[in-house]
Structure formats: structure tokens, C-alpha cells
């Protein structure tokens, strides 16, 4: 029994239990419900953080439950990558949950929202900490399907359409993963994530497995052309859910790809089968298309959603380059993009909440009325563009250096082009907000977001500004060590 009473098992299973507890207790009091929803992410975060020292000094903590779902069983592991992923998931989730307690006051069906919010968290934490493909898949499906409830929360016809698209794409992705996982099991008799990988043999089944992984994870991560659900689903969800969808859940797809390309397939197999080239092509298209379409979008949340697609392209690029430096950039960007994009979605949500303005054209003068909110937005947007010393710059720097090491000058050009496009779609918003004018005849309303919404945004902004400035950048440190570990066995 003591296997279940260590902090790591609790970090994984506590949200699952709390989701049930919330469902039962919310009939009594909304205070308990909100408290538990915030606490679930917070406690998981603290539990994982207790391992931070151990993991940074190289320890790997393992938890195995072989009796659940044989022949494959469940297993969890904390290494550098899952540490970073777990902290990002629970940390961002905690801040967003705090924000949600205020934001959701106006919304209906809160009794449905919170249990599923926590259930989705349980899935996301499990995905990050899983030590084999099968556990990964189990929690991946839990996360994806419970997130459906968050996506369709508004229940407008538009939301239902987007939700249906999301559901079908999720199922297709899940089936693709299912196929790949059993193919891996068939080829090797194992589905564990083993440092250095263990599948060395190419061939039809291996190729099909890789395609399955690319489709399954690509759908989740919003890689073009599997992204079609994303620009529909992210904007229709309530803003806290959008922040989590874009900030956290997309990352599970790329974490999966990193694990698969390094810890299931060997790096030589990936290179010899030219899968890295495939990933680079997809990454390039994703970067260009995501950023380009974002420019044309007028709805702020749609613009942010397309921006996410472009940013996921960066991470895929970092994976596809098969190069340690680039991988540092990719892994760091998992952290950086999570923080930046959730900050952006939260600020956008605050503006929509207070002013009801979704179109960026109407954002004239908002910077003067909601000054702190728009400062956070500005910081996050500048970081997205890649202004030093904000964290967005760090990942681009590492990615570019990695690309240069491989003589991939074109990719550096691509990153620069993308930065320029980011500038084109973010800067006018900022300019308009601070220096633009209100629409004719509209009265100034100086209503700042409530503290419960403002504080999480400011905390995120602090991460954006200070992570790269303070010595001992824990995220970069973990990313470096994780990448080093991934490439140790090449």
C-alpha cells in the first residue's frame, strides 16, 4: 500500500480523486468546490516540487503498477523531462484555476466545469509523468476526452460544432496512437520509455508506427495539417480553458514526440528512416502557416490560437533537427510557450470579461483603462516576438544555434521570418491598446480585472521577465540536462 502513499503517486492520483470529491461536495458549497479545484493543482505542484532537488542532481524516481491493465501495466517516472513537464502543467494549472474562480462567476454550468477541469489536470499530469507509452496513452485519452467538456462549455451552436470537430479529431488521434503503440509492442515486446531507445529495425511496421505517432501527437499538438480543430476549439472555450488548451495540453503532444523519437526509436533509426526530414517539413509549414494566418485573424482568441500553431512548429523544428542544442531550445520552449501563451489568453480573457471585446480592432485605448492587464499582455507579446532578455528569446536563441550547428541556415531564416510575423500580428494590438482611441461615442470605463484574475497574470509575467535574468534558471537547467540525457546514447 505504501506504493500509493509516496508524494509522486499522490501527485498523479490526487487530482483524480479530487475530481470525484469535487463532484460530490459541490452540491454543498461552491467555496469548497473552488477551494478544492485550486488546491488540486497547487498540491500536485508542491508534491512534484519536493523532488526538484533530487531530480536536478540526477536521480530518477520510478513508480510501477504492473497489475493494472496487463499485459502492459502502468508505470510513472520522474526524470528531467517529466519534472519540467510536470511542473509546467501543475504550476500553470494552479494559476489558471485561481483565475477561473473569478472568471467563471459569470458562466453557467459551473458544477460541470470544475470536476472536469480537475479531471483534465489528472490526465495532463499523468501524461507528463508516464514512463511508458501505454500509461501515456491512457492519461492522454483521459485528458483529451475530459477537455471536450471544457471546449463545449458555452454550448453555443458554434461551440458544439467546434467540439464535434475536436472530438472526432481526438478519437482519430487516439486510434492512430493505439495502432502505433501496439505496433511498437509487437516489434519489441515493450512499450517503456528507455533512455537511448530500443527499436533499431526499420521496415513497414516501424514506418506505420511512426506515421501513427506523428498523426496522433500532431493532432494534439496542432501541427499543420492536423491542426484543423485547434483554431475552432481554443477560441470557443472559456478563457481559462483556452489558456490550458493552448498553454499546457498542446505540449503533451510534443512531449510524446520527444519521448518516441529518443526513448522508443533509436536516434539512428529516426535519422536513417528520414523521419527527421519529415518532421522538419511539417515544422516549417506549421511555423509559416500558423504565423501567416494569425496575421489575418481579427478575433483575438483566434489570433492567439493560430499563433500557438506557429509556436508548436518551433518545438517540432527543435525535435526534427536531432541535435542537442536545438532540443534544449525545444524543451525550454515547452516551458516558455506555456507561460507566455497562458498569460496572453488570460489577459485576453480579462479584456473579454470586462469589456466583452473580442475583435482586436475594438481594443483602442484599453491599455489606459486596464493598464496592468495590458502591461502583462505586452510583456508576453514581446516575449513571443523574441525580444531579449524575455524567455521567448532564450528558446529561439538555442533553436537557432542548434540549427546553425547542423548548417541549417534556412531554419534560422525561418525563425527570423516567424519573429517578424509575430511582430506584425502582436505589435498593432499593443500600439492600438496604449496609443489608439476608443471607438467614437464609447465612454471610458476604468475597470481593472479583479485581483483573483490579475495576480495569476502578474505571476506569469514575472516568470517571463525574470526566468532568464536570475542566476540558476531552473527551467533552462532542466532543459539542458534533459536534452543531454536524450543525446547521451547517440
Amino acid at each position, binding site marked *: 500500500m505504501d506504493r500509493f502513499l509516496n508524494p509522486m503517486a499522490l501527485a498523479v492520483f490526487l487530482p483524480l480523486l479530487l475530481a470525484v470529491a469535487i463532484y460530490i461536495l459541490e452540491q454543498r458549497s461552491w467555496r469548497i468546490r473552488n477551494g478544492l479545484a485550486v488546491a488540486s493543482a497547487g498540491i500536485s505542484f508542491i508534491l512534484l516540487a519536493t523532488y526538484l532537488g533530487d531530480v536536478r542532481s540526477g536521480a530518477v524516481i520510478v513508480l510501477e503498477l504492473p497489475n493494472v491493465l496487463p499485459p502492459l501495466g502502468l508505470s510513472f517516472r520522474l526524470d528531467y523531462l517529466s519534472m519540467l513537464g510536470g511542473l509546467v502543467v501543475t504550476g500553470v494549472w494552479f494559476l489558471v484555476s485561481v483565475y477561473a474562480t473569478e472568471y467563471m462567476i459569470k458562466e453557467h454550468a459551473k458544477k460541470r466545469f470544475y470536476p472536469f477541469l480537475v479531471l483534465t489536470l489528472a490526465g495532463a499530469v499523468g501524461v507528463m509523468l508516464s514512463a511508458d507509452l501505454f500509461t501515456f496513452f491512457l492519461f492522454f485519452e483521459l485528458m483529451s476526452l475530459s477537455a471536450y467538456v471544457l471546449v463545449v462549455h458555452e454550448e453555443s451552436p458554434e461551440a458544439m460544432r467546434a467540439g464535434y470537430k475536436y472530438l472526432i479529431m481526438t478519437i482519430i488521434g487516439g486510434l492512430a496512437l493505439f495502432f502505433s503503440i*501496439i505496433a511498437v509492442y509487437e516489434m519489441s515486446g515493450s512499450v517503456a520509455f528507455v533512455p537511448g531507445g530500443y527499436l533499431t529495425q526499420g521496415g513497414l511496421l516501424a514506418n506505420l508506427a511512426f506515421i501513427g505517432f506523428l498523426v496522433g501527437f500532431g493532432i494534439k499538438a496542432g501541427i499543420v495539417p492536423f491542426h484543423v480543430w485547434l483554431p475552432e476549439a481554443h477560441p470557443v472555450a472559456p478563457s481559462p480553458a483556452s489558456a490550458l488548451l493552448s498553454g499546457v495540453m498542446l505540449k503533451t503532444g510534443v512531449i510524446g514526440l520527444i519521448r518516441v523519437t529518443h526513448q522508443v526509436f533509436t536516434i539512428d533509426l529516426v535519422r536513417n528512416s528520414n523521419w527527421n526530414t519529415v518532421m522538419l517539413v511539417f515544422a516549417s509549414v506549421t511555423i509559416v502557416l500558423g504565423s501567416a494566418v494569425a496575421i489575418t485573424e481579427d478575433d483575438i482568441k483566434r489570433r492567439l490560437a493560430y499563433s500557438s500553431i506557429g509556436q508548436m512548429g518551433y518545438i517540432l523544428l527543435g525535435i526534427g533537427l536531432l541535435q542537442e542544442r536545438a532540443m534544449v531550445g525545444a524543451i525550454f520552449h515547452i516551458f516558455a510557450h506555456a507561460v507566455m501563451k497562458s498569460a496572453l489568453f488570460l489577459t485576453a480573457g480579462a479584456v473579454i470579461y470586462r469589456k466583452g471585446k473580442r475583435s482586436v480592432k475594438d481594443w483602442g485605448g484599453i491599455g489606459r483603462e486596464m493598464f496592468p492587464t495590458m502591461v502583462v499582455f505586452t510583456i508576453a507579446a514581446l516575449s513571443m516576438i523574441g525580444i531579449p532578455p524575455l524567455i521567448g528569446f532564450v528558446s529561439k536563441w538555442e533553436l537557432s544555434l542548434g540549427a546553425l550547428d547542423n548548417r541549417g541556415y534556412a531554419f534560422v531564416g525561418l525563425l527570423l521570418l516567424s519573429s517578424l510575423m509575430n511582430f506584425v500580428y502582436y505589435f498593432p494590438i499593443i500600439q492600438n491598446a496604449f496609443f489608439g482611441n476608443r471607438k467614437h461615442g464609447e465612454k471610458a470605463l476604468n475597470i481593472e480585472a479583479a485581483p483573483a484574475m490579475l495576480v495569476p497574470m502578474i505571476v506569469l509575467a514575472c516568470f517571463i521577465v525574470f526566468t532568464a535574468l536570475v542566476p540558476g534558471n531552473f527551467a533552462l537547467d532542466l532543459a539542458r540536462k534533459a536534452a543531454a540525457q536524450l543525446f547521451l546514447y547517440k
Partner: protein
Amino acid sequence: MVHAPVLIVVTLLLAAFIVPLLYRKLPVAQVVFLLGIVISSIFSIRMAFLVLREGTLTYYLGGWLPPYGIEVVADAFGAYASLVLALISLPISYFVVFAPKEVNTPARYMALILLLMAAMQGMVLAGDLFNLFVFIEICSLSAIAIIAVKGTRDSIEASFRYLVLSALGSGGILFAIALIFMITGHLNMGYVRESLAVTASLYPLNILTALAFIFVGFSVKAAIFPLHVWLPEAHSNAPTASSALLSGLVVKAYLVAFIRIMYMVIGTELFVALPLRPILLILAACAMLVGSTFAIVQNNIKRMLAYSTVAQMGYIVLGLGLFSQRALEGSILHILNHAITKSLLFLAAGVIIKQTGTNRLSDLKGMGRKMPFTFAAFTVGSLSMVGIPGFAGFVSKLYLALGALDIGQIIFAALILVSSLLNATYYFPIVVNAFFGQTEATHQGSDPRKSVMAPLAVFALAVVFMGLFPSVVMPLVRQAAGLLQP
């Protein structure tokens, strides 16, 4: 000598004869009915443990030894099938007693269910061909009767169609048994098999003809594509509990009997040598695709579930056709998993129809908010049918797909995926429309009282339990699959 194998059948038959005598005292009849089911289930569970521990149990009725005496054989496969029948019948019987009455003659209905259960238990345990045929006949007639007992025009029409096709199937099976008897001079399965090893090469035509008739006969009864045409009408027009029994158990009992004839009489060597496996594979693939496609276009909830059964029978047949150890395990496991899931779905559908007064899927929009519990149970069933990990259906699909890859049949692994996607396209919209969207519910309705919902809750928990801990039945499943291997 352990009496459990024969007591399972005897208890049920005894109760079946007592219950109609008590038609004036319904509460007493109900107690006898439940006692009969519970006691025979206890024997069944005990037998499963015994078989697991000590291997195959044989029982000679009245102490008369074969080839002339009647033999009951409880091997791992028979014990497993008997266990499935017992476990699934418990909540359904509870539902029969405690749910609002759908038939005017409850005592008669309960007697028919007992008779049906006795016949099915007999079918999966019989050790000789003649008794097998007797039980098949009882099973067919009582299955038809529990449809017709509803008394509506549609149900009588459906049961009549079922009767005609089923009788053709029975005729085929009887003819095949006669052919086998002609060659071997035996009806006891063990003796037939021994004799066939010598005589099969002498009379190949007889054997082939017998096989063909057995195959077609059981295809009709187990609703294997393309002889499933009677099933959607029959299963959808039956009373709720009958639908659950028919879709959950009856079609599978026939399939189990078919499989037992295959390995106990014909022998797996012959089964593998003949081109039966490709035929099974093609039929399974068609069943999975066609069944699901028809299910998509249905607007009647029970018809949709019935077509889904056609597709799901395809999964079981697929594993049989693939014939690798893991595929067989998946196939055998799916007998249980589909029984739990489909019983859950049919009971939930029955409750929904009863409470709302409509059976049209298009009328169920927004009803999830009014009947949260019933639709939650339906959702659990849907997730299992689609094969979402953590639910029962996923585990059998996992084994089937692994089994397909084991023998290099990537195409059939892919087929399972396509079929899952098709399942999603007809199960998920129901769930989604019930719980989400702005359309207001057009019908009245609320969750029924707790005693009616209890069987649903039991099945729903079982679906999740089997999804997470299939290891509880795997030892028996593995042994059963091992029996089929040549």
C-alpha cells in the same frame, strides 16, 4: 464427483417449472425466480474456480459412462462461458423483477427466462451432440418466446421472422449432426473426434457437408454477417430485459457452442487446414463495417444498439479467424466485455424509452440534464463500445489488435481502428446531444427510482472494473484460448 456442472442446469430447469405454477402469487414466483438464478450462478462461479484449479471437469449423468451415457464437460472454455452467462444474468434478473412491467404475464416471462438460461448453460456445457441440439432447440424457442411475450404487433412479427430463420438454422445443425453420426456412429463429442481422426479422410465429402451446415446453422443463430438479418428487428422489438439477454448472451452462447464443436468435435487441426479462417475473417470484416454503417443511419435507439451488436459479433469472429493465441484471448474476453457493455446499453435504452416515451434518437437531445444517471450509464457503455482506454471494450480490442499483428495482419489491426471510429460516430453524438447544446429537451422524463437504476450501476461499474483490472478473468481466458490452439 463434483455435481456443480449439472446442478447449474438442473436448478434453472427446476425453477422454470415451479415459477409458472405460482402465477397467482407473483411475489413468491419472483422469489423463486431470483433464487433459481442466484443458486445456479453460485454453482457456476464455484465451477469456474474448480476448473481453474483442477482443470477440466467431466460429469456422467446418472453414473452412466459414455459413449451411451450423457456426459457434461466443463473445460476452461465451457466454465468461462457458463460464468459469463451467470454473472450477466444476475443484474438482468434483478431488473426483470424490479423494473416496471413491460409484459402482461410476468410469471410466464420469468419462466421463459429461466428456461432460456438453462438452455444456454446446457449448450455451453453439453458433452454430446444430441444434448447440444436439444438445448439449442430449447434456447431458440425460448429466445423467440421472450420477444413475442411483449405482445405488440411488431414484436410478434419480428419473433416470427426469427422463428423461421432459426428453424432453418436448427435444421441445418441437425442434418450436420446426422451426417457426423452416419460416419462415426457416435454422438459423444470425445468419441466422435477420435473416430473422425480415422474416418475423416475416408468420407471427406460428408465432413465438408456437415461442416458447411454447422457453419451456416450457427451463423444464423449467432447472427454472423450476412445471416444477421433477423437480429435488428428481433432485438429491438423485445422487452428491455429480453433485448439485454438476447444481445448480451444468446448470440454468444451459440457462438460458444460453435467454437466448442470446432475444437471438441472437428478438431482444430482440421479447422486450420480448411479455408475456414479466411471466410471467417472476411465475414467478420463485413460485419464490423456493415453493422456499424447501418447503426449510423438508425434513428431508433434499440435498433442502433442491435446493429452495433452485429458489428461487435464481428470482433469476436475476427479473433476466431485470426486464430493466434492473443487474438483468441481477445475474442474470448470480448464475449464477456461485450455482454456487460451491451446489457448495460440495452437496459439504459429501455429505461430511457420507458421514462421519456420515445425511442427516437433525435428526441433525446438535452435529456441528459433531466436523466443524468441513466445517460451517465449510457455514456460509460458508449465509451466501452468505442474502445476508450480504461473501459472494458478497450481491453478486448487491445488483445485482438495485438493478435492481428502477431500473425502480420496489419490490415485487420487497421480494421479494428476504422471500426472503432465508426462506433464513435454513432455513439458519441447521442451522448453529446444528451448533455450539451442549447436545444431544450422536448420530452418529459427523469431518472427512475433507485431499485431500477441499481442494475445499471452494477453494469457500469463492471465495465470500468473490467477496463482496469482484466487480470481477474485472464487466467481462465488464457486457458480457454489454449484449448483452441492445435
